[in-house]
């Protein structure tokens, strides 16, 4: 049983119980312990919760499609009574007395919380090589990174340790691990999912979203999480859409933008071919592929880096004096952020506005854009540079160059597994207009329905 929808069906036909599903997940967590996907597992609590939810179903109390489904949260979502470390020594013993909005909603919907997943320290990086809680390893190859910062969440979902794991995305932190581990990752529009009770990295770039094994599962989770929250003043007042795609689903008439510049310029040819193959499948299904020229993404990314550096440094100011408690890579980024000026930050925000206007215009001519998620499969752990088309590049900057700008724009984006390159999963990214997650999920589901997008079988991932 791989997906939430399959498990939900089995629960209602009494083919399984939530307790059984939870035990299966706990067994896989134990079996793949060396992947280090979790910081905290709450085994007894999970089993007790599952038994209660089973009893509810037996009494006819059905909370909906997430009732009895075992899930995990990235360890930056506050959970009442369960420590929330953010992968940092600073919070190693922090036990919140409140739930984050996400934890609260998932619990109310009947999810079983298995535990808290490992991540890049403070969610500030793409490797999930955490110096305090151990490195997360890629399920497909233990010498590779799983991506980050939501690396534990992606690895957990890929290995079947959880049906869904929540991630956060400040510059690709849901979509990159999704691509590198072969699962689906949804970064909703800024303001669509409440950030209340999530330890902040970057006030204007942080987005919360699920990692899952099907687009319809992503839709079910978003349906649960989307909506206004008065405790998060960046939360949008727009009512949630209907996110779950119909069956069968149609993409007839959809205008799919395929960038002519930037996104296919420095990428492994095999990945470019797989992504363009998805475009061809969508065309067969009735979509219209429209070649487009995108704005200056290199500059957009630079603007994103400045905003990220400054805001993260500001968020961490209470801890600047505890330098020895940061990992070296995170400390280096915080130091850079401390040195940029107020003028530079405001100018970056002005540039951000310019790019938002340019993208709004571009997205009048097409309904969504299709790009690779990353230019290569998962790099090796410890890799500082990668070589793409004979040119060495900084690994972090190379891996984030297709995803970072989307956070600056605040647009929704979905990473879909689109095949294997050198035995490792790679991803395609769909991005769309603000609050049009439903459209992206519909496109993803259409590709799943014809087998063009599939989460590789967990059994292969050893």
């Amino acid at each position, binding site marked *: 049983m791989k997906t939430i929808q399959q498990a939900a069906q089995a629960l209602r036909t009494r083919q399984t119980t939530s307790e059984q599903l939870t035990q299966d997940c706990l067994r896989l967590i134990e079996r793949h312990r060396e992947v280090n996907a979790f910081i905290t597992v709450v085994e007894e609590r999970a089993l007790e919760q599952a038994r209660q939810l089973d009893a509810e179903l037996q009494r006819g109390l059905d909370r909906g499609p997430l009732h009895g489904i075992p899930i995990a949260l990235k360890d930056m979502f506050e959970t009442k009574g369960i420590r929330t470390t953010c992968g940092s020594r600073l919070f190693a013993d922090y036990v919140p007395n409140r739930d984050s909005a996400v934890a609260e909603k998932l619990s109310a919907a009947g999810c079983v919380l298995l535990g808290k997943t490992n991540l890049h320290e403070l969610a500030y990086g793409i490797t999930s090589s955490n110096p305090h809680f151990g490195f997360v390893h890629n399920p497909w190859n233990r010498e590779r990174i799983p991506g980050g910062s939501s690396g534990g969440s992606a690895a957990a979902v890929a290995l079947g340790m959880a049906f869904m794991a929540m991630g956060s995305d400040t510059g690709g932190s849901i979509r990159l691990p999704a691509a590198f581990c072969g699962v689906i990752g949804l970064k909703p*529009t*800024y*303001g669509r999912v409440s950030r209340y009770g999530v330890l902040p990295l970057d*006030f*204007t770039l942080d987005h919360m979203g699920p990692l899952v094994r099907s687009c319809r599962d992503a839709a079910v989770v978003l349906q649960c999480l989307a909506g206004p929250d008065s405790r998060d*003043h*960046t939360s*949008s*007042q*727009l*009512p949630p859409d209907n996110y779950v795609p119909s069956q069968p689903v149609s993409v007839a008439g959809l205008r799919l933008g395929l960038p002519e510049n930037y996104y296919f310029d420095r990428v492994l040819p095999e990945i470019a071919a797989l992504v363009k193959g998805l475009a061809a499948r969508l065309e067969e299904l009735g979509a219209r592929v429209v070649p487009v020229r995108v704005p200056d993404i290199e*500059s957009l990314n*630079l*603007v994103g*880096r*400045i905003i990220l*550096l400054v805001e993260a440094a500001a968020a961490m100011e209470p801890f*600047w004096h505890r330098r020895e408690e940061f990992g*070296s890579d995170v400390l*280096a980024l915080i*130091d*850079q952020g*401390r*040195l*940029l000026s107020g003028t*530079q930050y*405001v*100018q*970056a*925000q*002005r*540039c*951000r*506005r*310019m790019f*938002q206007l340019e993208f709004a215009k571009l997205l009048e001519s097409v309904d969504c854009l299709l790009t690779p998620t990353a230019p290569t499969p998962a790099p090796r752990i410890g890799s500082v540079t990668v070589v793409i088309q004979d040119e060495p590049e900084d690994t972090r900057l190379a891996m984030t160059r297709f995803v970072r700008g989307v956070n*600056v*724009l*605040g647009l929704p984006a979905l990473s879909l597994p689109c095949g294997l390159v050198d035995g490792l999963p790679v991803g395609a990214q769909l991005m769309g207009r*603000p*609050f049009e997650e439903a459209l992206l999920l519909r496109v993803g589901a259409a590709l799943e329905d014809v087998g063009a997008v599939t989460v590789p079988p967990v059994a292969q991932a050893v």
Partner: protein
Amino acid sequence: MTDWKAIAQARGVVWEESLEARQIATLITLESTLSVLVQTLPFELEPAPVFSPLVLPEEP
């Protein structure tokens, strides 16, 4: 050119010697590219609102 090392010292940031060159190179890149980009902005263009980069829809 900005003296990043002096700014770092003034703000109490002390780099390991092995990291210093890389830190400064990054800051120089960010500064120089941003300054070129800013020259393309319309004078009256305002920043994205810091806490809501998207124009949020009206309340229903």
